[in-house]
């Protein structure tokens, strides 16, 4: 029995392990063991049984090819985690939930503020309105902050998706086409969110310009509209990000080392640009403008610096290639 297990271990050496490949390995091992037991029961010797089982195993490469998996240097599979379809699906779901709850948290806090404003609006007719309003604000803020804390803790679980990981070609193809399908809902959500935020000005204007409702009530409604709009952004944005992440960080096993190293260099380049280049430009702008009094036109430096930034980046990119 151990010989069979050892044989399967050898066959699956260097195969990236995901839920799917692990299940395949377990299933095949179970089958071989069943076969072995059946042979032994029918009177075969240990040697005969193992010989037959191994002879009837077949060609592992045929199977791996059908599965879309390439066997690699074991170093690579230990250095980088492998994400199967179910891992990635869970990731997208988790990101969606995260976005939803963050959005709800923001809505909750905004609702608390809206509640306070509503009670303040009726302070004249309702004694103690300020306190009720503050209580409102406080309790909704607690719910909102609670949601942030819970999601913040859960975000830690998703960290493993932030560095490059191994993904199978079939899966990547599928998720890219899913993202394509999701694009419509994403755009719809962004439009809906933006519309709600723009519309949120209406209650304020109604309060300020007409006598239909008090200004404070207008502001309260406006906050609620913004809150609902934000949920559209955070929910669909996070799902979209998850797909983008799979596209960016999900790499094929043959090229992952190379691409991960390149990403790392690009990241450093962006870091240099963001952390050094732009602050220097800002300093030059202020020093020059103060000393020369050229405020009227010295802002041009930002336009020039912007153009120069892409030149520097593309130069760095072309060095990279050679």
């Amino acid at each position, binding site marked *: 029995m151990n010989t069979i297990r050892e044989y399967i271990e050898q066959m699956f050496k260097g195969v990236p392990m995901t839920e799917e490949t692990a*299940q*395949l390995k377990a299933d095949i091992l179970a089958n071989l063991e069943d076969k072995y037991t059946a042979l032994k029961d029918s009177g075969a010797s240990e040697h005969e049984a193992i010989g037959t089982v191994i002879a009837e195993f077949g060609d592992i490469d045929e199977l791996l090819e*059908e599965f879309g998996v390439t066997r690699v240097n074991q170093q690579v599979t230990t250095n980088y985690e492998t994400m199967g379809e179910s891992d990635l699906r869970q990731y997208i779901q988790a990101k969606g939930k995260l976005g939803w709850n963050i959005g709800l948290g923001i809505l909750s806090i905004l609702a608390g503020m809206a509640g306070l404003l509503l009670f303040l609006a009726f302070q004249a007719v309702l004694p103690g309105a300020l306190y009720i309003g503050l209580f409102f604000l406080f309790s909704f803020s607690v719910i909102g902050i609670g949601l942030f804390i819970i999601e913040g803790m859960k975000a830690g679980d998703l960290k493993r998706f932030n560095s490059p990981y191994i993904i199978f070609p079939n899966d990547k193809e599928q998720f890219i086409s899913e993202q394509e399908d999701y694009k419509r809902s994403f755009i719809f959500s962004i439009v809906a969110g933006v519309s709600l935020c723009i519309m949120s000005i209406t209650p304020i204007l109604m309060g300020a310009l007409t006598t239909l409702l008090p200004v404070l009530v207008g502001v309260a409604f406006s906050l609620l509209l913004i809150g609902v709009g934000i949920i559209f952004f955070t929910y669909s944005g996070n799902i979209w990000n998850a797909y983008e992440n799979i596209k960016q960080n999900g790499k094929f096993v043959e090229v992952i080392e190379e691409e991960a190293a390149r990403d790392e260099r690009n990241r450093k380049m962006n870091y240099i640009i963001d952390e050094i280049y732009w602050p220097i430009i800002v300093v030059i702008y202020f020093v020059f403008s103060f000393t020369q009094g050229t405020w009227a036109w010295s802002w041009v430096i930002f336009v020039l610096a912007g153009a120069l930034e892409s030149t520097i980046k593309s130069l760095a990119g072309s060095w990279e290639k050679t």
Partner: protein
Amino acid sequence: MISSDVIRGYNDTFLLSLLAQGDSYGYDLSRQIRELTDDAYIIKETTMYSAFTRLKKKGYITSYPGTVTQGKKRTYYSITEKGKNYLKEKRQEWRITKEVVDKLVGGDNK
């Protein structure tokens, strides 16, 4: 024993045909194939799982984790409506193939 080259194109159909009689798992299917053919054809383990992968991708079968038997959790396979239609087509195709090969290569009477 039959050479696997000849039969290659029919592995998927074998499995579908067996699954059409009820859900089953890997070892049981390979055992059925061997017993039904009186040991004339033994499907290789990797050939069978390649076929499962292919059939699943095409939506002809689905898989689900079965209950634990003898300490092992097996993956069960089940044929879909689409799979049943495909099987029907393949059966028709086989009837014609059989006739053609019989006529050209020769059947029992030659």
